[in-house]
């Protein structure tokens, strides 16, 4: 069984939702508090959504200094699978584990609504079970979700196939409709939409399953994806 650490900062609020999604997929997940210096014996790490440290200064700016982030960086450098959802994505960009930044939405309001995503790369740990061009209905829930980066970074993202998901109808002003990016190796991914909120048709959509299953290495053929620590052992 796959073991996943779900990192809790003071102010995180989606940790129980991620735990519930992991349980639904048969993974064994544990909450790891931000003051921890080790992650334990895990196959993957998820930074959930919320408002780590109150989003003071700007989202993720303080969380990157939490003790646990050293362990997360080491884990990522060793090729472990790391996923940041929403605020977790913001933390990963602030920590330098992912390129670019998230700025305030184009309309300057918080947005909680369903979005249609288009899978643009399947070489990341998040999308390795999906198919290119596949459309997924997954909600967003953020104030600062407009992805931005400089031209050089953007060219590099394109060159290394790091744009993982795009919005079909850009809700927030993200550059090139980007909803998710990975690092060059594909083992660290951040996305603004919430796949854990799309796990059941009772709640409107089950399209998040294919992403989280991919992250856990479920339904993925041998050799699919790259650098994924999850499910590889």
């Amino acid at each position, binding site marked *: 069984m796959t073991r996943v650490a779900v990192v809790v900062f003071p102010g995180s609020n989606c940790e129980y939702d991620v735990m519930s999604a992991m349980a639904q997929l048969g993974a064994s997940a544990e909450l790891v508090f931000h003051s921890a210096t080790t992650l334990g014996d895990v196959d993957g790490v998820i930074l959930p959504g919320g408002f780590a440290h109150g989003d003071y200064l700007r989202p993720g700016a303080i969380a990157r200094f939490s003790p646990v982030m050293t362990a997360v960086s080491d884990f990522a450098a060793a090729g472990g699978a790391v996923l940041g959802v929403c605020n977790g994505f913001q933390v990963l960009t602030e920590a330098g584990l992912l390129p670019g930044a998230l700025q305030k939405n184009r309309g300057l309001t918080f947005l909680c609504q369903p979005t249609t995503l288009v899978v643009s790369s399947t070489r990341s740990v998040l999308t390795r079970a999906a198919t290119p061009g596949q459309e997924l209905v997954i909600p967003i829930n953020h104030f600062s979700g407009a992805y931005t980066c400089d031209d050089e970074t953007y060219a590099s993202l394109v060159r290394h196939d790091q744009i993982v998901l795009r919005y079909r109808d850009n809700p927030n002003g993200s550059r090139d409709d980007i909803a998710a990016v990975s690092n060059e190796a594909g083992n660290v991914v951040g996305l603004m939409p919430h796949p*854990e909120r799309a796990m059941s048709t009772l709640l409107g959509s089950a399209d998040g399953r294919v992403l989280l299953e991919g992250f856990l290495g479920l339904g993925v053929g041998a050799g699919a994806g790259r650098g994924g620590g999850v499910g590889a052992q």
Partner: protein
Amino acid sequence: MGVSNPAPPSPTSLHRALGLSDDELDDIRKVLSREPNHLELALYAVMWSEHCSYKSSRLHLRRLPSKAAHVLVGPGEGAGVIDAGDGIGVAIRIESHNHPSAIEPYQGAATGVGGILRDVFSMGARPLAVMDPLFFGELDDARNRWLVEGVVSGISGYGNSVGVPTIGGELTFDQCYGANPLVNVLAVGALPTSRLALGVASGIGNYAVLLGSLTGRDGIGGVSVLASAGFSGEDGAASIDEAKRPSVQVGDPYEEKRLIEACLELLDHGYVVGIQDLGGAGLICATSETAAKGGVGMDVDVTAVPLRELGMQPFEVMTSESQERMLAIITPENLAAVNAVCDKWEVRATVVGHVVEPALMPDGSRVGLLRVREGFDGQVLGEVPASSLADEAPLYDRPRRRPRDLDAILADDPSDDEPVGDPHDDLAGLLVDTAWVSRQYDSQLFLNTVVGPGRDAALLRLAGPGLPPSRRGFAVSTDSNPRWCALDPRNATALTVAEGVANLACVGASAQAIVNCLNFGNPEHPEVMWQLSESIDGMAMACDALSLPVIGGNVSLYNESGGRDIDPTPVVGSLGVVASLVAPPPGWNWRAGDAVVLVGHREAAGGRAFPLGGSRWATRRGRRGGRLAEFDASRLRATFDFVTGEVAAVCAGEPSDLTAVHDVSGGGLAVALAEMAAATTLGVSVDELEGHGELFAEFPGRFVMATSDAGALVARAQAAGVPVSVLGVVGGTRLRLGTLVDLDVREMADQRASALERALRRD
């Protein structure tokens, strides 16, 4: 005597400045058998304020039914709690934050959310959902647009960040709220029934620990200066008293989030004997109420309270309404463990009180004294019976008078003589989608939201961290109709209760309990007291008839500006339970070819048409008079039970021909049909609807249902003794209602979707 003594400083000026009347000062002298000092006067001023003591309304609130077998906690605690089954209790509470929001909309609304959440988690419940009924003046006024944007971003900014989904509410515009908007907030939480906590101090020698934020000068006199007096100016915007802004508190959702986690962890470990939030009237309210409930005394060391600013006076420390604070009663042995949990969540914890024996009085009785001291062994700065603050505020039976002009208003009935006019324009003007508001709220956190904002009622799974597993769901609706209440507050309030039950039925939930937020004008106006008393009688009548306990409430008076009272606005929050929630209810999404059926009576008792008095249609035409149809429980109950059963079967995953359901409410049948058409962009053609009365009259207890098998649904309704008629068949791109309305559905849907944003953006 040749030399006159200088007059002693008159205490009258002080008590009046604090908001106490001369009679109230005399009452205090009687309680203490001496003159109160400045500190004691300040304590009585906040605790005996209208906001804290309900001194004008308590007499009437007693008439509301509050008991039922499934009620675990009724009115008087932080929140009411019902047993929802499967070992889970559901806590619910509603509050107003009207005056703070009129002055500082962002912080006023934000701290309203924070306060209601503390009420809920003080019961041991994890807050799972918030709803916000909001009432503003018309949007052609720039200040009202500023208020709407400020209030909505305050709720969004605080609620999203604190991590509790906001699942709906109401948005009402009427000129009567121009200078006095209403910002009500309802919260629901759930708890394993074993974790139920109460705000009671007990155990001599136990500690009272203050948890959370530093105490500052924010919100001093919030309950007395701000919440218990009207705005004094003569005209609209200018009448808002800017000088009252320092009485508005400032919220910090991050502090609250950590406070929630810390408190629930303390309760899970069983470290807490009793717990209460600090809201209106701050530390003096929490200490005196917990002591009074426990029949004990409490010593408070005013110098132990961690302060945000220098030089605060004892009365300021005791009455400050600084946000994000709780008071926990713990045993001394648990102090280290409590500190460890609080350290983890970076929550400040300070022992500020000791539970002490009740004092022996000269007459031999024992009285729990609230003593404010300078150090636990230091000088006593103030000493009053705790129960005199908490329970023995004056009780007023204020004069009541039916408004003299009411008969003339009732006689001006738009049902009689208002011309048909342009029903197209009427209908278009009544269609407003509130998604611009609700998409600013996180409505989905905790993976429970099956039906979110913008539908009849919100429906959520009854699940959350730490709760026993359950297939149940709970539904919540907030309802009000000030247009009705201005005409006939008794009948209108009864109909509002019925409207809540109807909304719950649309998502398959059977109503279990209600809470109320009674927003009225100045109780010193006899007409306002008459409205309040009538409204409470109407609520009691409906609750008795529908077997609904009232498990909590809030009264907000002095909603007036420039001498003009708001229309009476009792807001009803209804809580329902669905026994098995494994599939979503039908919602509004009818399908091409479905039959559209109207379930419920098509005319009022006696065969008369439902009247248009108090309808949105008539109000939009400037007609505010007329009569209402009578609340008639015997006619409503069968319809409610039928609809609830039909929808609950769908939620339980049973096969059903039912494809859509929506209740007829504000705007009448025309609006209900238009909203269903807009949701799907599929039209319907209804031949037999004639006359604007049938299109726009509002009366709860009627439902539009769509079905794939009209014969079967009609047969089931008839078997249940419920009136039913087939209106038409879904299909095409036009909404055609008799000869009066013929609209392109897609165009109408687009107009409806953008109406609110267009109204807010005009400048």
